[in-house]
């Protein structure tokens, strides 16, 4: 199972071990773990709630994964994205890519994070001392995704 959308936390070590178990052609695994930060836009953040679009989320993540596999020779891919209420320091997302070659692992992992941030239907609601606010999309994320379209 390469794409999971879940409320529960995940264990990076268990996921890494499962991804590589018995696959001795893998030379490297690149992983990225996104975490809830305690500050945003200069304000303290006490909690973050992730809303998503069930059904479409999984479809989009599977499409993003398929695109990564078309672009790079990957032995395996794992994407886990959490939804629901999270606190600073909590894990939000895990992307892991396994390949014979480290450049393919690194690049596909970064590609997946960039596309996930602009295509996967998740929305963050931050709780701050001034109340709740929806996180605005960043132009830097659009720019990051655009670099893969050339």
């Amino acid at each position, binding site marked *: 199972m390469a794409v999971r959308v879940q409320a529960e936390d995940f264990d990076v070590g268990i996921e890494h071990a499962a991804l590589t178990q018995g696959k001795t052609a893998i030379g490297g695994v690149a992983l990225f773990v*996104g975490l809830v930060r305690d500050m945003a836009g200069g304000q303290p953040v006490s909690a973050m709630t992730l809303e998503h679009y069930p059904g479409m989320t999984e479809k989009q993540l599977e499409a993003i994964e398929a695109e990564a596999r078309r672009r790079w020779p990957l032995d395996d891919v794992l994407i886990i994205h959490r939804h629901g209420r999270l606190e600073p320091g909590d894990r939000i997302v895990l992307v892991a890519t396994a390949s014979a070659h480290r450049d393919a692992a690194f690049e596909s992992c970064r590609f997946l994070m960039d596309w996930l941030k602009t295509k996967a239907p998740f929305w963050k609601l931050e709780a701050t001392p001034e109340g709740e606010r929806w996180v605005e999309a960043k132009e830097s994320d659009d720019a990051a995704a655009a670099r893969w379209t050339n």
Partner: protein
Amino acid sequence: MKILYFAWLRTKIGVATETVEPPAEVATVGALVEWLKARSPQHADALANSKVVKVAVNQEHVPYDHPLSPGDEVALFPPVTGG
């Protein structure tokens, strides 16, 4: 036709889903967004700036000129901010 709203579109409009029957001349996503604005002041406010209203039809991102078909599931939402 089933409409879904997410994030601040949902909170501004006050409902997560609604079922609508637009007339036949509402043939594209863009026309549907315009038509939905007339449903209430909350709709008009939430949908005022089309630059931040993104649309998925049957769970795929689509542009505003995408044609509509009966039975489509149409979702309206702000730019995504996951990851």
